[in-house]
């Protein structure tokens, strides 16, 4: 197990470093960040002064080295728009995103996993059909459209929930449902097929043949064995929740990391883009690392690969 953990950690460190480089290259390919940010009618003297102050006049390798060095110490430079350190802005928005993503994940676990298990165990029942139809619809419905429909229904027509912003529990309802919808549909389908696969195994037949009650067959033999694919895929998909947060936060004016990224991209505020995109990819990579380690612990065969 130790060798497995060490090799996974080394791989993760490499990926983090390479993605840092990728972010830098991507942002620098776009041309002069200062000119893109500045209004059209600015004077050349001011542009140059701004550039000098932020270090954009140095050769690219120097800028790259400074960027990587700074990033290691958590310094991504100063936001062009807010004149504050970019990482500070990102960290300030982080709790809102974590709250939203956490609530959605919880909703998913409470709704999707039991739905998938019941659909598989009671295959071809009414509940299975209803579940299949709703997961297929859930996967096809774009989150931002679902958001608009919910706002129309619950804010415009019924006036039950606020259209956006962050505040009490009522503000959390629609964004987390929208974010959970797509993810739940995936997880319910994956759970159903994972459980079905296990139910077809010989050891389930054996368990039934030796007279075990259905509760024990499902609870002990089936669920334990189908946990591995569910955990893996749920973990891999968890990262996509961060991508979904970018859209959901924008619709509901939720003051999180996703909305900050969109605004920074629209404003061409590149230090904030660098910090935010890198931070999201870091979280994503760490989630994947956690899943891999959990996977290795659940299924010892994995460690040998």
């Amino acid at each position, binding site marked *: 197990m130790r060798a497995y953990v060490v090799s996974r950690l080394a*791989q993760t460190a*490499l*990926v*983090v470093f*390479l*993605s840092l480089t*990728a972010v830098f290259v*991507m*942002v620098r*390919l*776009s041309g002069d960040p200062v000119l893109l940010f500045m209004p059209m009618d600015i004077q050349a003297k001011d542009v140059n002064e701004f550039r000098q102050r932020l270090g954009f006049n140095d050769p690219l390798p120097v800028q790259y080295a400074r960027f990587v060095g700074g990033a290691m110490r958590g310094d991504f430079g100063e936001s062009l728009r807010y004149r504050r350190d970019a990482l500070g802005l990102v960290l300030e928005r982080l709790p809102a995103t974590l709250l939203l993503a956490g609530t959605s994940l919880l909703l998913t676990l409470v709704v999707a996993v039991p739905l998938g298990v019941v659909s598989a165990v009671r295959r071809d029942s009414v509940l299975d059909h209803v579940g299949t139809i709703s997961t*297929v*619809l859930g*996967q*096809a*419905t*774009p*989150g*931002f*459209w679902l958001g*608009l*429909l919910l*706002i*129309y229904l619950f804010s*415009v027509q019924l006036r039950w929930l606020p259209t956006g912003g962050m505040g009490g529990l009522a503000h959390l309802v629609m964004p987390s449902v929208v974010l959970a919808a797509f993810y739940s549909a995936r997880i319910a389908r994956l759970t159903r097929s994972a459980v079905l696969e296990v139910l077809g195994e010989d050891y389930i037949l054996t368990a039934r043949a030796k007279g075990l009650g259905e509760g024990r067959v499902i609870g002990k033999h089936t669920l334990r064995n189908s946990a591995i694919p569910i955990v893996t895929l749920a973990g891999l998909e968890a*990262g*996509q929740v*961060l*991508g*979904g947060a*970018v*859209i959901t936060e*924008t619709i509901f004016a939720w003051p999180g990391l996703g909305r900050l*990224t*969109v605004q920074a*991209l*629209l404003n*061409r505020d590149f230090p904030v*883009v660098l910090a935010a*995109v890198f931070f*999201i*990819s870091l979280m*994503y*990579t760490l989630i*994947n690392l956690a899943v891999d380690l959990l996977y290795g612990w659940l299924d010892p065969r994995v460690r040998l690969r």
Partner: protein
Amino acid sequence: MKKWLGIALTVAALLSALGAPWLAAHDPLRTDFAQSLKPPGAPGHPFGTDQLGRDLLARILHGARLALFIGGCTVIVTAIVGGLLGLVAGFVERWPSTVLMRIVDVQLSFPFILLAMTINAIVGLGLRNIILSLSAAGWVVYARVVRGEVLSVKQRDYVQAAAALGMGRMRLMFRHVLPNVAPSIVVVASLQFSSFVVAEASISFLGFGVQPPTPAWGSMLSESRDFLYVAWWLAAFPGAALALTALGVNLLGDWLRDTLDPKLRV
């Protein structure tokens, strides 16, 4: 049932896309302030009109054209680029494989939509650039799947036999390995198509991608937010068109996977 619904919805989307100029009674760009914000069912405008008096049905039909064009181009570009790289990496293991898998790892450390949006914000807006951004963010899925398939096909007896008979590597790769991984490429392409269409709409919704006044579903939905209190149809119909297209293509993709390659996980 799933198969027929998938085929029906996909064909409907294709027909609207191809036939948009003939099916639509109005020019999707022509404004008419006397007719602005008419509800569905208004004379001559079955889906109503938007804030500038443009016919919503015409805009949705032309939106289908744009969405399917972008989705189609992206699927073709990613299938060719990702497929070829995956083929080479699986065939010539050693360093091409390692390099490719590192690139794939790095790309997969960004959520797809965030990566496509960031690339799009950087390379610039417009039709060509949205196809470019989606392709740059999406090709890794093919590369990974195809590489995995090639690694397993390579071990089969007929490939080994052809190699033992002295067949050249190029011929072996394109004549024996490629046809056997082709079904996976088709399945991945069909499953990716709807995610590209939805991603394009999301990116245009956020203010990048295709810009108004071009009738793209995403930017139409984005504009509809300002009129949600007075004109629900501006949000309802373009979104429904998008969701039904995605549903149709997803069902078709599921059916293709069940038929061609039931073990494949994407």
